């Protein structure tokens, strides 16, 4: 599981940090790791599990604090755990061109096509270029 901070209104990723989940020890694993026999109690094990929960909450809170420090308001953001599959969906949205960038690119392509058309027409008028449609129809060959 990874952690992601999203801007609610736009769905924009503010930040991602991988990992953060705590691998909890089973009762047996945990009891073997405790040196003092008197500390091997159900109560102490529950305290250990609560510490794991608190650590995970703290790690998720890291992204929230980062967003607040960057100027976002708490109600503007959502901080959550994401699976690998969920992260791939989010990641696919990153670095996509904006509508303005797409429009600018389309405009650039149109301008280049128009300039090429004008240049070709000029060359045809000067007799330096055979129109492509006449070549295609077999009426003329390339010079």
């Amino acid at each position, binding site marked *: 599981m*990874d*952690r992601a901070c999203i801007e609610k209104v736009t769905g*924009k*990723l*503010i*930040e*991602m*940090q*991988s*990992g*953060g989940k705590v691998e909890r020890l089973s009762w047996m694993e945990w009891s073997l790791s405790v*040196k003092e026999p008197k500390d091997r109690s159900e109560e102490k094990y529950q305290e250990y599990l609560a510490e794991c929960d608190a*650590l995970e909450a*703290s*790690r998720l809170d*890291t992204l929230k*604090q*980062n967003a607040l*420090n*960057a*100027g976002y308001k708490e109600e503007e953001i959502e901080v959550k755990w994401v699976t690998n599959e969920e992260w791939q969906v989010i990641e696919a949205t*990153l*670095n996509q061109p*904006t509508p303005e960038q797409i429009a600018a690119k389309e405009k650039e392509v149109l301008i280049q096509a128009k300039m090429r058309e004008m240049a070709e027409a000029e060359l045809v008028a000067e007799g330096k270029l055979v129109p492509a449609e006449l070549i295609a129809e077999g009426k003329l060959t390339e010079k």
Partner: protein
Amino acid sequence: MANVKITELTELSETPDNTDLLEIVDDVAGTPTSKKITVANLRGGLASSGANLAIGSANYKLFVNAAGNAAEWAKGIVVMNVTRALDAAAGDVSYSGVGFKPSSAIFVAGLSNHGISIGMDNMTAKGVSCVFAAAYTPTNNDFSIWIANAGNTVYQYAFIKSFDSDGFTLTWAGVGSEAITYRIRCFLLR
């Protein structure tokens, strides 16, 4: 048994029981006093110093724990991925989930058709080398991460401000703003 040197006593040629007794000199620096101690208490002291630490997982390494009062086995190496947007505000950013306090870091930041930077940082020495679009190849010894847009007109850089108990904090700064996001791979050493 009076007036017998320890070297003259019969040797216990087997592992002592926890209830066996040894002689020990207490408070050597103050008022030295000969006392007895059980093997159990002696073993407890050795365990807390790490000398009697149970074997850990395969390929784990021995570290002093965060409190500095006992030894522990741990991996001591973590790889984590984070993101950084080129329109994010300058300032300190915390990264957590490492599981220990790192002492050194290697960063590899990259984005297709834009470039990569490779940097290292232990707060004492740091540096970054980059290859970006349009032959933009900054090399710098003041930062450990450098990211830039395709035109190299917008860029951000960072260095480690602090190593924390569960991660680290980067101080980010830069020039301009653009809505693109870099992936940064972090290799952290305890």
